[in-house]
């Protein structure tokens, strides 16, 4: 008599438990609702429900003149606002064929790379917090405050800048900006080493993140994942190198690609280390820019009336989360006919149900944290 006959399992009704990781939760990086079907601790299906932060950005922009849309773009991804307005300005300038002075290009690149450092540093702190290490979070925020102070001397605002306008920037660099930024960069590099020692090679951190949520590169491209998450899967795809805009073709920097050092290529540890290394690359870029920034008038090319020619354009930009695209259709008027923002986190989040099947709830948090989403740009 075999063991199976002794236990009558036909009358035991097992069901999946539906957990709601609700809109308010310490780890969902914003108002995201995840409906998780679990069997014990193991996840069988996840359904993300978004739209809690939808503010009708695209409909508003059909009634606003082009230059008044810039503050709205800031508020989409509030952690990388400079990137949002930079990408929008590039799209409008493409349709108007404006020639931007060099000083403006250098200032824009400096500001974008500083913003990238701030956003990636925030990611490191918050990812550590999701996994359970609370101390790097406070250290990283202390350093991020210094970047925000720099932006405050530049634009007057801490988080939502309204700085990069189509045709130029709103103010020139203040007097001591360059010296203060170089001081900050010299201070920041040893701090990165401290955080590195605490998190990157920590055995418990590696056990929590390596081999978890492995994203294969063909599947990543199929799902439209871009940015550091795609580079962590081994694809060398960075818009700053592949289709250089602004002055990126004159600058010398590397693109970190995930190599699966602690596990498989494309796991959460790779997504973490790619962003960590990108901070170092951004520091390099900023130092190069400071050596060769020319003089000039930043308001020289600001158009009096922003009226792009008739037609449509799709312009792409590498923001800290991935490929940010603006598709603008214009009829020759001073308001756009249709403005669509292709946000990177929208496609990055859509890969979460595929990645988390078969892992535990703690791993869902790790994977979600490693994708680095911001609900503001997903919902617009």
């Amino acid at each position, binding site marked *: 008599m075999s063991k199976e006959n002794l236990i009558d399992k036909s009358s035991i009704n097992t069901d999946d438990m539906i957990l709601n990781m609700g809109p308010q939760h310490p780890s969902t990086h914003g108002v995201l609702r995840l409906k998780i079907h679990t069997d014990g601790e193991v996840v069988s299906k996840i359904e993300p429900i978004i739209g809690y932060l*939808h503010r009708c950005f695209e*409909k508003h922009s059909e009634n606003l003149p082009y230059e008044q849309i810039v503050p709205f773009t800031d508020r989409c991804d509030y952690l990388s606002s400079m990137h949002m307005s930079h990408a929008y300005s590039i799209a409008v300038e493409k349709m108007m064929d404006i020639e931007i002075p060099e000083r403006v290009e250098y200032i824009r690149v400096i500001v974008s790379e500083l913003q990238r450092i701030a956003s990636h540093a925030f990611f490191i702190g918050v990812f550590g917090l999701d996994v359970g290490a609370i101390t790097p979070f406070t250290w990283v925020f202390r350093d991020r405050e210094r970047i925000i102070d720099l932006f405050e001397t530049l634009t007057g605002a801490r988080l939502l800048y309204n700085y990069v306008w189509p045709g130029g920037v709103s103010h020139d660099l203040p007097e001591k900006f360059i010296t203060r930024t170089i001081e900050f960069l010299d201070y920041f590099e040893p701090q990165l080493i401290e955080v590195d020692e605490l998190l990157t090679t920590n055995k418990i951190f590696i056990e929590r993140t390596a081999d978890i949520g492995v994203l294969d590169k063909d599947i990543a491209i199929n799902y*439209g994942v871009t940015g550091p998450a795609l580079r962590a899967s081994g694809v060398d795809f960075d818009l700053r190198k592949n289709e250089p805009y602004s002055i990126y073709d004159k600058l010398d920097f590397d693109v970190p690609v995930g190599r699966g050092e602690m596990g498989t290529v494309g796991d959460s540890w790779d997504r973490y280390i790619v962003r960590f290394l990108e901070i170092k690359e951004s520091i390099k870029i900023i130092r190069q820019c400071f050596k060769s920034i020319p003089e000039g008038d930043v308001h020289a090319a600001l158009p009096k009336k922003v009226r792009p020619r008739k037609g449509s354009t799709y312009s792409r930009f590498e923001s800290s989360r991935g490929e940010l695209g603006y598709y603008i259709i214009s009829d020759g008027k001073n308001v756009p006919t249709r403005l669509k923002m292709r946000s990177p986190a929208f496609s990055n989040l859509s890969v979460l149900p595929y990645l988390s099947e078969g892992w535990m709830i703690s791993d869902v948090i790790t994977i979600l944290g490693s994708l680095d989403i911001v609900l503001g740009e997903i919902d617009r």
Partner: protein
Amino acid sequence: MSKKTLTDSISSINESIAYDEETNIFSLKEVGTWLDIATEIKNLNFNYLMCITSIDMENSQLALAYNLHSTETKDSIEFNLFFDKDTEIPSVESLWRTADWHEREAYDMMGIKFINHPDMKRILLPQDWEGYPLRKNYKVADYYHGMYIPKDKTSWE
């Protein structure tokens, strides 16, 4: 691939594909054949669908703009579909999984329905919302769940 060979190879997939030299956009009016055309385009190594944009043309037609990219040959193309308001479009979700959420958003905002989509429901707005906001003739409803939506907002300042 050079631009000429690329445009020739795409235009030769189906004779209803039109190509505009100035704006560099392919357009299609018979949307029934879209899935086959898209399969052919994918076979030409366009493995990355960047964006699907839904557009309300003023002349009672709707449009969809597909931006595609090839990570190997580094080419980008744009494909526009033009159709009437109640037409249903074949979904390309089986070819590029990016289209899953982008098509849901097109349905949500513009009211374009897709055939063979695994999960056709609203994504950004609540499930019981009425109307399609991004259409040009959209008027905000007067009541939502019994709450009155004020139209005159001058007293809000």
